[in-house]
């Protein structure tokens, strides 16, 4: 069974006929006014919103093609740099960054031995008192400047201040 909307649309489009048309019009006599307004609007739209012929219909297509060609040319030119494909350069750069991070961030050497990489080289020592003598004792992984001839500090001197 058809709904009201289906019958109404069919009636507007002139598709109802016979008994069906008679019964619909007798049930809804007020719809004639609506149909007249609908037809008026339909004619108005058909007269004013018809397809319009463009003066230069290929303009947009040509412009789009030009843009695509420019993009292709630009992409082709930039895909290589210094004769290498960009992807290869990016790989080399990533490797360099990786090695840089490795050598700068990860400590090397024997971490178990605190003396590994030990460097302490005394270049010059000078004592103000000629009685005081400074000698440098370079041992393995330890350098000591030994001051001899210094007066002993008084035992009651508080060094914890």
């Amino acid at each position: 069974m058809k709904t009201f909307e289906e019958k109404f649309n069919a009636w507007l489009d002139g598709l109802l006929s016979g008994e069906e048309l008679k019964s619909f019009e007798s049930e809804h006599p007020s719809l004639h006014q609506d149909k007249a307004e609908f037809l008026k609007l339909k004619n108005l739209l058909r007269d004013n919103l018809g397809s319009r012929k463009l003066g230069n219909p290929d303009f947009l297509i040509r412009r789009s093609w030009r843009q695509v060609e420019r993009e292709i040319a630009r992409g082709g030119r930039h895909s290589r740099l210094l004769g290498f494909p960009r992807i290869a350069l990016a790989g080399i750069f990533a490797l360099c960054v990786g090695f840089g991070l490795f050598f700068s961030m990860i400590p090397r050497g024997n971490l178990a031995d605190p003396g590994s990489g030990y460097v302490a080289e005394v270049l010059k020592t000078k004592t103000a008192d000629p009685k005081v003598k400074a000698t440098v004792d370079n041992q393995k992984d330890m350098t000591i400047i030994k001051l001899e001839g210094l007066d002993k500090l008084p035992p009651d001197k508080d060094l914890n201040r």
Partner: protein
Amino acid sequence: MWSFEENAPIKLRKGCRFYLLAAFLLLFGAFAKPAIATEHVWGCLLYASNSPKAFDLPPRLSGYDVRLRNGLGFSNYRVIAQRETAVGDQHQNLLVSAGEIQVLLTNLSRASDGKYLVGILFLEGTNQVMETQARVGERSPLFIRGPGWREGQIIIVVMVDS
């Protein structure tokens, strides 16, 4: 004639280049050493003795106990004072002091090989006892056997930290 469709990709590409450049600068900036780097120098005064009471060495000197025993002849080391100094552009930096003993850093510069040239001045009160220039590596302590005190000896330790 300007059109948004034509200019937008160019603007986007320029924007991408800018962000790429900024990312590179950030990446390399993170690893670059600052022009005026602040180095940290640790100074320590140890009391070395053969006392039977055992003390622990400061953590920075862990692993040096045997070497200290062999090199200085003392079995026990006690921290009297220690201090870490961020070395700025001052002429002299006090590294560590205890009583009248003062250890000053007179200069610090980094050589091209990554080692440091340090100038150390050891004072007792206002009297200069010794001045030294040394080339040291990072975390390589330099030991100075100082004056005797009680049954032992005062040991000065200077170490450049990163």
